[in-house]
């Protein structure tokens, strides 16, 4: 026997109607609707009241907009002439004066290729080749040789170094990361163990330590007479760490693609590499893109860690600029400027990742 709790269907209810409130009343309810909200609102207003006016005074009304360091020291606000005076140093670092057009061109190329790579329409083999060509071109421009006067890697600093390190890490680390990701999924125990060891070792140890080992210890292990420029050593360290992170991002992507697809392809006689490159990988990459963009953002900021091995990227250039005795001590202004710059770049990338995510959901 069947028992019913209710024999009749519940009559349909109208949609819960949204309260139509005028804008001020809606916000009034949001901010002051309950005692808790009143408390939070008042607290926030007090904090803003304490923070914003002094900040505004420091940033704008009491700041010095043009003048000498001496005038800056007398003022209570920020010293913007410092940024103006040192701007070219932030950008170029200690790059030789006569060769700066090369650094400018390198910046343009690196920004350009990043911009192009962000447009889904251009995704494909062509983009990979263009990107590799751009990296080779940028290295040639910055380092010289082959017709251009050579520039020592120690002299490369400022913005080109930051861009070079962060924007080459993804395309160069990607193949290595892919190998590691495949290795980790491999049926051969040896491959799997090696891959897991590499991934976990580099993800689990501080980037600073890896950088330090690459910079300080590596020269002792190289054969006598062979020196690897510091830039290359740093790049190698970033590359292997990035590859470890990329491998994990890709592993996530691999797990999303159903096993059945590969089995189906196998049953119609496709080779393993065909299955990988034609069926699995395209989907894996599409699923991993948000994670990969996160890695770019991460490494864009982490490049500043090379300061510990004595190289000066964008952030370090800002610190160095305040070591000039004439302009000593205006570090805060420099950091505000750096924060604005890094925020802009990373925020644009995050927005982009968000858009990609939506795009993927629509598919």
């Amino acid at each position, binding site marked *: 026997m069947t028992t019913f709790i209710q024999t009749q269907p519940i009559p349909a209810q109208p949609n819960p109607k949204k309260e139509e409130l005028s804008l001020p009343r809606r916000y009034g309810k949001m901010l002051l609707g309950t005692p808790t909200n009143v408390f939070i609102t008042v607290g926030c207003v007090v904090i803003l009241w304490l923070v914003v006016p002094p900040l505004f005074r420091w940033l704008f009304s009491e700041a010095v907009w043009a003048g000498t360091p001496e005038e800056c*020291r007398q003022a209570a606000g920020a010293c913007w002439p410092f940024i103006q005076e040192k701007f070219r*140093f932030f950008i170029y670092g*200690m790059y030789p004066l006569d060769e700066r057009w090369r650094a400018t061109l390198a910046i343009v190329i690196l920004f350009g290729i990043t911009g192009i790579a962000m447009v889904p329409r251009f995704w494909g083999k062509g983009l990979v080749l263009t990107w590799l060509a751009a990296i080779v071109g940028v290295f040639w421009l910055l380092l010289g040789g082959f017709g251009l006067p050579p520039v020592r890697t120690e002299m490369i600093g400022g913005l080109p170094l930051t861009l070079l390190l962060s924007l080459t890490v993804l395309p160069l680390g990607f193949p290595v990361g892919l190998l590691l990701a495949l290795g980790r999924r491999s049926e051969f125990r040896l491959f799997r163990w090696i891959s897991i060891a590499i991934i976990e070792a580099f993800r689990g140890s501080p980037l600073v330590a890896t950088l330090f080992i690459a910079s300080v210890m590596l020269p002792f292990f190289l054969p006598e007479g062979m020196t690897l420029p510091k830039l290359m050593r740093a790049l190698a360290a970033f590359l292997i760490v990035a590859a470890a992170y990329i491998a994990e991002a890709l592993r996530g992507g691999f797990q999303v693609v159903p096993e059945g697809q590969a089995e189906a392809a196998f049953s119609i006689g496709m080779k393993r590499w065909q299955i990988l490159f034609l069926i699995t990988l395209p989907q894996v990459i599409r699923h991993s893109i948000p994670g990969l963009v996160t890695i770019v953002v991460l490494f864009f900021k982490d490049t500043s*860690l090379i300061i510990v091995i*004595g190289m000066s990227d964008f952030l370090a250039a800002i610190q160095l600029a305040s*070591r000039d005795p004439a302009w*000593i001590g205006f570090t805060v202004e420099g950091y505000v400027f750096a924060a604005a710059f890094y925020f802009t770049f990373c925020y644009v990338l995050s927005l982009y990742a968000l858009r990609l995510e939506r795009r993927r959901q629509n598919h």
Partner: protein
Amino acid sequence: MLSTLQSASRRAALLLTVAVGSCLAASSIANAGTTLDAVKERGVLKCGTSIDVPGFGYPDSDGVLHGMDVDYCKAVAAAVLGDATKVDFIPLTTQTRFPALQSGEVDVLFRQVTTTFTRDTSLGFLSGPYTVIDGQGMMVPKSLGVTKATELNGATVCVTPGSNSELNIGDFFRAHNMEFTSIAMDSFDDMRRAFFSGRCDVFTSDRTYLGSIRVLSKNPDDFVVLNDVIAKSPLAPVVRQGDDEWYNIIRWVVYAPMIAEEVGVTSENVDEMLASSSSPRVQRLLGKQEGLAKGLGLSDDWAYNIVKMVGNYAELYDQNLGMKSAIKLDRGANNLYLNGGLLYPPPFL
């Protein structure tokens, strides 16, 4: 965050340096007499220096390096290669400087290195003559009316906890039976603000650093760096052991600007002096006596090149640390013995 990172990595680096250094010192890379040849063959000097220390090695707005250590690198290039611009400056941090010298990445280290017993004996290094005689000093507000460190009884001192300078200042006050209150600060930036806002009476650090901090105040003239030195910090170039010829060159490159100042030769009057001075000391220094520099492995005009291209010691000091620089540090101990300082270059005979 960066400073904690740096101090952590500094500790790691020190361990690394000592470990690797003692291995290398034991095996002692045999490179006797080869550094000079290597530099000449390369045509450029690889000089380890700092790029972040005001007055010693720092870039200007165009990214060109200046400073006392930088100028001494140029002096070596001028002496050895006859061209002060033939220097590859290798920027080194306090963590990377010793491994860089040990591994042969640099020919010589001019990087604010304090000569100590351990560095000379366990890292496989030799220290040259002092380029700058620095030391831990004290800065006080003039309004305190203090002229000597021994008048500081009862003073409030800003210190960084656990640092050598904290130990030194504690020892100094106790040794003179004086009372003091110490306020611990995490960073030099905090210390600077606390000092300038009047929270402490004494700011203690290396005297050259005090000089560069003093100019940060709104009224630098309200503060004074006392002449007392409570801990020694003589700064000198460093080379690898086992190459006596190169060590000799570095030693005499350090002395040459001092001797030039002693005999009154400057970068401006050096040509005039070379042509017309009848003083045998000037003539010997500037290379009129042929073959004198043969034992050094250099051409006779080596010292002339240094003075002409870089300057004498007074010029070096004034433009980098002294009155013509923004740091405005007194000559103090870094004056010639003739003027009551400690610079006593050997006779150029």
